[in-house]
Structures are given as structure tokens and as C-alpha cells.
């Protein structure tokens, strides 16, 4: 099948705007190759830290009603060195997600991928369940600025900055990211959440608190994309609760130039990526929309 809905975002040409979100099947080159084949426009890797991380003990993911999950994987990842070996032969449209706890780590990580055929990077400023990583860094605006500059110094490839709804103002963080040189914003990450089992009277996740993803967060993601696209010049990748092609359309109308899917793959399987793309194509055909760009931000009119 042909999954073509060509788009250009931050200078990158993608075959379609449907991107696999970070942390979703994000560890193995063989899986990446499979994801390209079945329709993904691009893939974001699991967030990679300088050193390997085992993450939290299970349970690391729990379903809540209504097609949503709370996860606290704890940023388990093979570390920059090992992951650069993993993807050394990559030819597909891969973005490497970066996470760290100190400014100095980021340039070291980015350098490991200097000779790789990848599209670019996504900076994870918004992991809600690992202390001193992600979210906590994202709350320090000066640090955000410095990290982005240090990454941009190491690479000419586009850098997307992933923001979330945490302790600080998402608009402010995104504006700082833009001014520091970010090429795009990804919004949103999961939100700090919790599930307590009332029979055993304890939180289900080993880490107690995790990040809420899936259907529940879609209205929040739509709102963030809408507000971000009002005040930013750089493009936005929408993420959060996308379950159908019409959710993709809603995000794009709110102002997203591309979108990412995550939880859907747990609910409907890996083939749901291709189904979303084909659904989107039919939608465009039925509406006589020649270029998907036409609908980006149309809800602002």
C-alpha cells in the first residue's frame, strides 16, 4: 500500500503526518523498519539518556477506563552508546528523543548520533514521572534555554521540543524553546496521574505516580495546540489521545502540522498506524482537499 500524504515540517519531508510517539515501540531498529513499512510517516525513539536505565519495576502501565493509560516506565532505555549502535544502519525517518538531568549530558548524547542517518531530535522536557528528568527540567526556563542552545550547537538537524502540562506555563516554556532555536514543538506529553486499587488500598503503579495518556487527554492536547499555534511561529506536532483519523483532523485544524500517536497502538495494535493514514487519505479525498496544509489551523479563522 501507499501511505502518501506528503508534508513538510521544519524543513523535513515526510511521507505523511502520522508519527509514532516517543516511548512507543521505540527501542529496536527491526521494529522501526517494520513501522515504516506499515505506514508511519516518522518515528520518535524512546527517550535516550546518557547512560542505560532499567526503569521502574512492574507494574509500569495500567489501563484506566475509556481508552486511557497511566504509565511509569521510568525512562528505561539502553543509553546513548548502545542505542547509537542499535540504529547505526537506520535509513528511515527517525527522530531520536533526548532526555537528561544535566545540561552537559545533552551535547554528549547528540554527538553519538553525529554520523547517523536520522531526521533529527526531539527533546523530552516533559516526562512527568521521573525526578530530575523531563518535567523538572522543563520547569526551569533558563535551563530549557541553555539545553536547547547546547543541542543546536552540536547539530544542524531540526530539534523538536516536547512540552507538557506540568507545574509551569506550557506557553511560556514553548516560547522560550522557540527563542532558543527549537525548530518545532511537540505537545503534549502525559500528565501526572494516579490509580489506587481500593481493594488492596494501594497505588497500582510501582512508582505510584505515572503519566496519563490516551482518550482522556485529547481535549487538553487540542487546547494546547490551539493556544501554542496562536503564539508561535515554529510548527507544532500534536499529540495526545488520537484514536481515529478524525482526531488527527481535529489536531490539524487546531494548528498541528503533524501528529503523533501512542496509546492507540496498545489499544488497536500496530496496524492501526496504517489505518489512521488511510482514513486520513479518504477524508482528504472525500473533501477534495489537495494539500493537507489547507486544514492546518483552519479552526482559528
Amino acid at each position: 500500500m501507499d501511505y502518501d500524504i506528503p508534508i513538510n515540517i521544519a524543513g523535513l519531508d515526510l511521507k505523511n503526518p502520522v508519527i509514532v510517539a516517543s516511548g512507543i515501540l521505540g527501542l529496536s531498529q527491526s521494529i522501526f523498519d517494520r513501522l515504516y513499512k506499515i505506514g508511519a510517516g516518522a518515528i520518535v525513539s524512546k527517550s535516550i539518556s546518557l547512560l542505560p536505565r532499567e526503569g521502574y519495576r512492574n507494574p509500569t502501565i495500567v489501563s484506566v477506563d475509556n481508552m486511557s493509560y497511566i504509565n511509569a516506565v521510568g525512562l528505561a532505555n539502553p543509553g546513548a552508546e548502545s542505542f547509537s549502535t542499535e540504529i547505526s544502519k537506520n535509513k528511515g525517518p527517525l527522530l531520536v528523543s533526548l532526555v537528561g538531568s544535566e545540561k552537559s549530558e545533552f551535547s554528549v548524547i547528540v554527538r553519538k548520533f553525529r554520523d547517523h542517518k536520522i531526521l533529527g531530535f526531539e527533546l523530552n522536557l516533559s516526562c512527568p514521572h521521573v525526578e530530575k528528568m523531563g518535567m523538572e527540567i522543563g520547569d526551569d526556563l533558563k535551563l530549557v534555554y541553555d539545553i536547547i542552545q547546547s543541542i543546536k550547537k552540536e547539530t544542524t538537524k531540526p530539534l523538536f521540543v516536547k512540552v507538557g502540562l506540568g507545574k509551569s506555563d506550557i506557553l511560556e516554556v514553548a516560547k522560550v524553546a522557540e527563542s532558543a532555536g527549537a525548530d518545532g514543538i511537540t505537545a503534549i506529553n502525559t500528565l501526572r496521574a494516579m490509580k489506587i486499587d481500593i481493594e488492596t488500598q494501594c497505588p497500582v503503579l510501582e512508582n505510584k505516580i505515572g503519566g496519563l495518556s490516551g482518550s482522556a487527554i485529547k481535549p487538553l492536547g487540542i487546547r494546547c495546540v490551539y493556544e501554542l499555534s496562536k503564539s508561535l511561529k515554529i510548527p507544532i506536532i500534536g499529540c495526545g489521545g488520537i484514536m481515529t483519523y478524525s482526531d488527527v483532523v481535529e489536531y490539524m485544524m487546531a494548528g498541528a502540522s503533524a501528529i503523533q500517536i501512542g496509546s492507540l497502538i496498545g489499544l488497536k495494535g500496530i496496524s492501526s498506524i496504517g489505518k489512521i493514514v488511510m482514513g486520513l487519505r479518504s477524508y482528504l479525498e472525500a473533501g477534495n482537499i489537495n494539500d493537507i496544509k489547507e486544514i492546518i489551523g483552519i479552526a482559528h479563522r
Partner: protein
Amino acid sequence: MPIDKNLMRLVKIEDVNIETPTVKTIFFKDSLSSVSKPGQFLMVWIPRREELPLSVMISDTKNHAAITIRKNGYGSTSLFNKDIGDRIGIRGPFGNSFSFNKSLKNIIFLGGGTGLVPLVRLLYYIKEYDSKFTFIMGAKTKSELFFTELIYEWAKAKKIDLHIATEDGSLGTKGYPTDILRAFLSVHKDIDMIYTCGPELMMKKVYDIAIINSVRMEASIERYMKCGIGICSSCCINDKLVCVDGTIFNETKIQKLTEFGVSYRNKSGILTKF
């Protein structure tokens, strides 16, 4: 409304069977698990401790199912220490299942340890069928064997050949179950299928033997699992996700799994040699 298998259900342990000093079967009521297909697994939550993937074991009681746990590290020991009346959480069943149809007339089961669980569930499902069943069981030593009585019991109603291999020779043939398989296949040329579950290096041998003898086979592969629903990729083997594309793979699929019997992903996702 049908129950969503992804939502965790708390169940009370209703009965326990001590299989060996380190292996226990735990029975509970859960209609979704009770109808799970042979080879499927559950994600089992031990509150405040761990969550582990465990194969579904059989129960004779309607709407009931069971799990069989070998005491090992932190999580499995916590579960092993649970008793009647305690509560555990389950979600699932997940994964595919062993294929079976009545045209398979001559079938071998080969397993060891808790790898026996899905094989026993499969045999339970198909034992009334008009096929020939050979069960090859391996263990380090006699005291580590279990489920033998269950099979002897079934064998009363219907012929089931049970072959046992122990590494120390304390019961059955001395050596590995794969030695028995090799010998068996050199004599019996009409085998339609081998089902296997157990240590991966053992299953690798079964695969090699099956290929040499041109016999079809299916193996249940284990990998480190977090989500059980195909989202985290911690369980991947080559481009397959064991939790949703497996756990059962046949010889055609295994042929493409260059990591099978060679390497696995550790908890950080680093590809590691066995």
C-alpha cells in the same frame, strides 16, 4: 457490557496446589481467563510488589483459571508466598495461542519447568480428540518434576505417552528431553506437530531437530514484558513483539527470528547474548 480485558481485575485466591517445594498452582475465579486459549498469558499483579507475565493454567471449576508459579526472584517469590484468601490482580489474557486442528494425528509436547503450563492447557483442550499424544518432560532431578500425575490421570481415559528426562537420571532417561525427542523422531516418521515451551536454548534445539526432520513445530517464546499489549517494545525479538505477535511462533516464523536462541533484550532494552 463485556469486561475490558485490559482493565485489571482483583481476584481472590481460592485454592492452591503445591507442585514441588518451589512450584505452586494458584486457582481463582475469572471468567475471561477461564476461556483463554492455550498458550495465552496473564499479567499478574502482586500488590505492592510486582507484575509478572504468567501462562494460564487449567482449572476444573467453571469460570475458574489458574497460574503456576516457580519461586525465583522478588516478584515470583512474593506471588509464591500468597495463599488462599489473598488477592492478586490480573489483566489479559494476552497473546496468540497454539494452533490446532483435528488433522494433526500425531503430536509431541515437549517442555520443562513452568514451560509445561501452556502445554498442559493445550493438551487439556484437545485430549478428547482422536490423535496420538506424546508428552516429553524434562527436569534437573526427580523432585523438580510436576504435572506428571495430572497426565497419568488423563492417560487413564485416553492413551498419552509420557517420557521423562532428568539431568541426573533420578527418574526416566538421564539427559535432556531433546535427547528423547531426537531418538523418538528417528523411529517415528509420522509426527505432525511438536509443541514446545521452556528454556529458550532447549526450544532452539527442538527447532533444529524439527527442521532436520521436516516436522512442524510451535514454540512459546519468553521475553521481558512490561505492558503486555504491544506498546513498550521491551519484549521484542527482531521485528516481532512477543506479547502480541506471539508468544507462539512456528518454524517458518522462527526461521526469520535471528535473535531466537541467541540474544534477548535486558530491562534497559540492550540486546544481550544468552
